[in-house]
């Protein structure tokens, strides 16, 4: 019974099951000093799938997605992203990072650059695009996230919600195949959360492969293809949203849901 609902391919709709794997984690283990943050995580994210990772704080959700683009180094297990194996080879890491965009809880915009320069920096120097072209793309992206008029301001002059939308645009400018979201709305004032979630919904509708760590249950229920529940470095349950919220498999999930809903 236990094996079935933590099987990485659990709860896949036939349509999703037919698609290629985008991210594959097998037996991923990670220690911070003596503390084990990930205790052998198996996970598969399909092409154009939206996967939401839930769990109490300290459960290893953030660590997991930070391992996917090598912001943290895992000690055991294999991670494969779009067919590229994540090893110590710098070229593989560069290749994966150019395919995976990431949005942080604290936005991490570059405070000394204008919004436009924040977005065009990587396309110009990593993708080697012409400045004119990169700026046109950046303006189009700002239009898409709903703040075209802020292009020439500095991040410090924007509200939190606007900053996070710039951060999303900055990641999208690299034309990634996968987007990772690490608690993108946790540092925001309540009235700004929806403007960021709306942008993420639009992104999901456009067919982006997304892994989202969040506490926004409404978003999870509405947008996710599958939900992953983690606790103490283990994947406890993988399920589709309807079943997850109404009839979860594991007792631990039930307890978690009863505490937050």
């Amino acid at each position, binding site marked *: 019974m236990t094996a079935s609902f933590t099987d990485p391919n659990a709860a896949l709709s036939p349509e999703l099951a037919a698609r290629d794997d985008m991210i594959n984690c097998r037996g991923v283990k990670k220690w911070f000093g003596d503390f084990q943050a990930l205790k052998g995580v198996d996970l598969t994210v399909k092409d154009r799938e939206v996967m939401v990772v839930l769990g109490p704080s300290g459960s290893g959700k953030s660590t997991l997605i930070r391992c996917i683009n090598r912001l943290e180094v895992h000690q055991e297990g294999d991670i494969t992203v779009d067919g590229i194996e994540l090893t110590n080879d710098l070229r593989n890491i560069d290749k994966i990072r150019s395919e995976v965009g990431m949005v942080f809880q604290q936005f991490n915009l570059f405070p000394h650059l204008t919004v436009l320069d924040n977005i065009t920096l990587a396309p110009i120097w*990593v993708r080697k695009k012409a400045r004119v072209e990169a700026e046109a793309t950046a303006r189009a992206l700002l239009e898409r996230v709903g703040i075209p008029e802020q292009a020439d301001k500095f991040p410090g002059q924007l509200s939190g919600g606007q900053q996070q939308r710039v951060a999303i645009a900055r*990641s999208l400018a690299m034309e990634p195949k996968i987007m990772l979201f690490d608690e993108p709305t946790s540092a925001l004032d309540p009235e700004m959360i929806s403007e960021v979630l709306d942008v993420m919904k639009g992104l999901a509708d456009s067919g982006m492969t997304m892994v989202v760590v969040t506490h926004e249950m409404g978003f999870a229920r509405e947008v996710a293809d599958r939900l992953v529940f983690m606790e103490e470095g283990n994947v406890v349950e993988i399920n589709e949203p309807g079943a997850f919220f109404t009839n979860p498999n594991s007792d631990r999930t039930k307890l978690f849901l009863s505490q937050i809903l």
Partner: protein
Amino acid sequence: MAAIQDDLSMNLEAGGVAPDVRPDTPVKDPVQWMKENLFSSVGNALLTGVFVAVLGGLLWWFVGLVFKDSNDWDAVATNIRLLFSFNYPAEQYIRVWFSLGMLLGAVSLTAAFFDINPSMSVRKLGINASGLGATSLIVGVLPATPSGARIVFLIIGALFLAAGVGTLQAVDEPHKKFVSFPTMLLTFGLSVVAFAWLVPIGRNEFANGAVIDEGGFANPSTKIPWTIMMAILVGVYFLARAVKPMLPVKPVQTFLITFWVAGPAFLIFLVLRDPTFDYDRVLKVDIPWAIGFAVVGGAILYWLTKPMLGEIGRLVAVALLGVAVLNWVAAFFGWWSMLQKTRVSFLVLALFALAAPTFAGEKSARVRYVGAWVAVVALGHWLITGINTTSTLDIAAPPFLGGFTISLVIFYYVMLVSFPLGAIMALARTSTLPIFRVMATVYIEFIRGIPLITVLFFFSSMVSLFLPNGMDLSELAAIFIGYTLFSAAYVAENIRGGLQSVRRGQFEASDALGLTTSQRTIFVVLPQALRVSIPNLVGQAIATFKETSLIFIVGAFDFLRVANVSIASQPDYLGQNLVGLLFVSAVYWVFAYSMSRASRSLETKLGVGSR
């Protein structure tokens, strides 16, 4: 402001209630202010009394020092050129004025194109004028002041006090009215010109070996150049403001930054020295070499900045570095002869090649990179040729500059080299590669444990003992190297402090975007670290500037030595050290204080983009 008004009117149109207007904070009258701040309690009143007594005593003592009977201020007035430009020949003095004019013009252009326009409120102006007037009156009353000067101090004091208080009384709401920067600049320029032409400051100079000391108006060779200088300062500013809307601002700003970095070197070596170029050789040897390096090097760099070039590019860069180092080794052992500038060019080309992958991009980025290389070649070859050509200037003593100018020159070169060197050291010390980290740490801690004077002595006297036969290091070059190495260690520590303040998230965001380590450092980490380090770096710059006076102990004729030794040993002014020292202190203070003020406004200006 406009936005607030829009909000206001919208509110009113919507039938809402206009928000209350914040009442003005009343400006306290002086008596009230003193009551609240100086005499609020018995203890406070006591402290105020002690403070005023100490301050008065100090002023008394200082005025006594300045007006001591044995002081002969003519010593400074007569030797003013010696103090500032040492024994620079009078018939070539136009070159000094030309350099100063260039610098003043650049100051005005910088102010205009970087929108530097500090303004002062009328209230502040009135208070400053009154304070100046009051101080002048007190000096006039003190018994130490000689009777001739007493009248002048009393009159000037009364005038300033009246003007200051009058302004404060006559102007309505003086704290809300401002004197603009152009007005202040114009007033400054006109005051200097009026002073030079209308005030009988007398004529003091050396002419044909005799001291001239007569009353009357200033010498034309003083007041005419200063009038032109002020015309440049003010004229260029207003001209620049007028043409600014028609010019692309960014390129002009880039040009100005380049001028401040490279311009002084140009002025020192090509204007003040006047090299006699052998144009035949320039045409046949120098220019072809420069063009060769520009074209061949440019082609190599254009190829190296091709995106995704891979390992082959790195191999070529390392090979170039090998050739460059080999050239220097060959020159050292005399294996083959080569022009000095080709050796330098090879080295710079290798550095450009190593940095190429970081700046690789599509066509316009590559063209810009090659353009930077061509500019470096042109400037470098021109300067090296100029430096290696003998000068027509006939100067009695070996150093072609001295006095305050040599202090400025040493300061400029030490800053120019020790800043990049310090930045590299700081990065090395925070690097994850142990070799770099250990080397940088050992160097920085070693240098910081040694007094500057030891370093200077070492480089001025000991280093030449270790040099191979036939290689010679001039005294000044040795001092410069020692001082630069010393300063770089301190700059490195200041920048390291800034590097540590850059948050971890900045590194993660750069990594997640796929920037390489060097791109992350250049575009994200260093700009933020440098901004944080500005106050410390300016402090370091001011310290360096003042400590240039230490070069006097290793034999250079700097500002301090001219004042303290040269003037005091002239037969006419034997033993006049005190006036020289007072004058030197005043000049150093004016420069150091200006730097400190400039840094404060720079911090405010850069604060725009901060969190």
